[in-house]
């Protein structure tokens, strides 16, 4: 109706003045929506940040890669592990496995063997245990690490079994203080090594990179020549040793499409040669998909929690509005007596609730944007504010105003004007 349209603007003013005249109550009523909207945005931002970090670290592992990792078999499976060899446990991936993969699995681009051990290192008087990655130069092609100084391992180092090493930033911190470390000489177990380069560390994250704890890289040929393949520790009960030819084989496939088939074929092929289950196959692509699925679940859970808090905020509004209708019964009676239609009373109260919920929504929006910034600033946890979450939270808050305002407004309009005027 044209007339009602004409009347709409004054009603907005009316709603606004209603809110303004009951400041304290309005603010308290809005709080529910403020926190509801704020928590939706903040939670989604934190969730998005965390999963983005996880996805990022998986992506850095390379979606074309397949990781084969040696695992110590559980004792009941590997009864023969130590039976003939005394206390020397022999298990894990072999050089032969690498060759078999290269020869039998289609679409393999590159294989990188690696052995990870812990060895004592010394510089002058300082002695620390380092995590050593013995590998070939193409490691750095498959697992990319920014070079901070010097150079990485080369084919020549590998062929000549050179006593050179590349430290990680963390390795430098642990072993050498100060800068200009390239050219420095360090002792690792029985060998002297020259530091030829420094690379940046993998920065943690929820998914561990194959070398997330590494301190130093050396050519695998040098490692074999100096240390052999057995890692023996002396302990109170005597000695305990492990012989692991390769701790890891990273297989780079030609494309992401061939990753899944390749990993299955590899697992089947290796299972035929390994009687006991002493290896596992990690596919970053699968991890990626899983992480994405987890992220979705996470978002649904967060969304549900936030939705409930918005609902609670809405019920709070409804509560206050019902109280307000009772309190303003006389006003409603006066307005009706003067000639306000039922629908105009509905409109007045509905606009009142909408002003509250949208006002709360706007403040909540600001709170929701501020919280992730504070979190990132204080805990260095990454947060990402998704534009859709802003629209979603704000839209829901407006909707809540309408839904939860409708009942009190209708109730107000249904009051009999004669009764309402008599109300004290």
């Amino acid at each position, binding site marked *: 109706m044209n007339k009602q349209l004409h*009347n709409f603007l004054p009603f907005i003013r*009316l709603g606004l*003045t209603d809110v303004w*005249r009951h400041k304290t109550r309005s603010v308290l009523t809005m709080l529910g929506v403020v926190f509801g909207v704020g928590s939706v945005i903040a939670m989604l931002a934190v969730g998005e940040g965390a999963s983005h970090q996880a996805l990022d670290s998986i992506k850095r592992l390379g979606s074309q890669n397949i990781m084969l990792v040696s695992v110590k078999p559980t004792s009941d499976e590997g009864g023969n592990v130590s039976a003939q060899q005394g206390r020397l446990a022999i298990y894990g991936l072999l050089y032969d496995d690498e060759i078999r993969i290269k020869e039998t699995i289609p679409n393999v681009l590159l294989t990188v063997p690696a052995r990870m051990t812990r060895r004592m290192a010394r510089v002058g008087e300082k002695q620390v245990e380092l995590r050593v990655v013995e590998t070939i130069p193409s490691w750095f092609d498959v697992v990319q690490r920014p070079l901070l100084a010097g150079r990485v391992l080369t084919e020549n180092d590998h062929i000549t079994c050179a006593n050179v090493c590349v430290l990680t930033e963390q390795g430098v911190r642990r072993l050498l203080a100060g800068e200009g470390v390239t050219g420095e000489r360090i002792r690792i177990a029985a060998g002297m090594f020259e530091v030829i380069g420094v690379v940046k560390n993998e920065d943690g994250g929820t998914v561990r990179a194959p070398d997330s704890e590494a301190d130093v890289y050396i050519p695998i040929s040098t490692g074999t020549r100096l240390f052999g393949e057995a890692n023996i520790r002396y302990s109170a009960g005597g000695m305990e040793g492990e012989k692991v030819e390769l701790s890891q084989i990273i297989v780079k496939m030609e494309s992401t499409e061939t990753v899944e088939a390749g990993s299955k074929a590899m697992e089947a092929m290796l299972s035929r040669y390994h009687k006991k289950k002493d290896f596992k196959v990690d596919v970053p692509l699968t991890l990626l998909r899983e992480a994405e699925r987890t992220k979705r679940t996470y978002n649904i859970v967060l969304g549900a929690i936030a939705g409930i808090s918005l609902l609670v905020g809405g019920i709070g509004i409804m509560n206050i509005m019902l109280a307000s209708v009772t309190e303003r019964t006389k*006003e409603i009676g006066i307005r*009706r007596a003067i*000639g*306000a239609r*039922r629908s105009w009373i509905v409109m007045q109260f509905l606009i009142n609730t909408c002003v509250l919920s949208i006002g709360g929504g706007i403040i909540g929006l600001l709170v929701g944007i501020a919280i992730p910034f504070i979190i990132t600033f204080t805990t260095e946890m990454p947060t990402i504010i998704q534009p859709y979450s802003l629209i979603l939270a704000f839209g829901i808050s407006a909707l809540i105003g309408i839904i939860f305002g409708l009942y009190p407004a209708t109730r107000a309009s249904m009051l009999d004007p004669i009764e309402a*005027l008599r109300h004290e």
Partner: protein
Amino acid sequence: MSDVQQNVHAPSANEVVRLDSVTRHYRVGDETVRALDGVSFSIRKGSYWAIMGPSGSGKSTMLNILGCLDRPSTGAYWLNGENVAEMDDNQLSDHRLRNLGFIFQSFHLIPQLTVCENIEMPLLYLGVPHAERVAKAKMLADRVGISHRLRHLPSELSGGQRQRVAVARALANDPAVLLADEPTGNLDSATSIQIMALFNELYEQGKTIIVVTHEPDIANYAKGCIVLRDGRVASVNEKETRP
């Protein structure tokens, strides 16, 4: 021709209010209470009437029906040429908005609104633009002698001042009938005299006024008096008619 007649034809042009055998029944439990039991009268444009009666006479019911807040159970009530008995709730609201000005015993101003906003209220619902509303509110406040208090809240005014604001609000929509319910019930006698003088002024200016009261002193200000008893018209006295 008298202002009050007993006939069942459609109202003539100067009959602003006309009731034809109006009844109003309530059901209380198993009993039917006849609050109004066949009331007929008519009121000419520009006249000033009092409706009197002891409590239980059907005075309040009469007021509600005259004020279009309630509909007769049977019979017809014409206000400004339209039969209220046949209207739905929205039409009733519109009818109140256009044709009636209410003045209540306890003023019934909205406490959160200023004097000006209270006076403006009927105009707001009529869809009058803001500037025009304010201008008219000022004019009306001036007319009832309250223009110096436009920005005040009702709680800051005396009883007499509040009732003046209520009168200004009742006049805002240029109603066909001013309907007052015990307009001096909450006022001291000095203020009552002032308010009744204001009513008299309005009558002189040509307004149609109906005052519902149980006080003979107040009824005396009116130019005619209808007395109700047990839901029926007991007597109709007219002191003077407008020349």
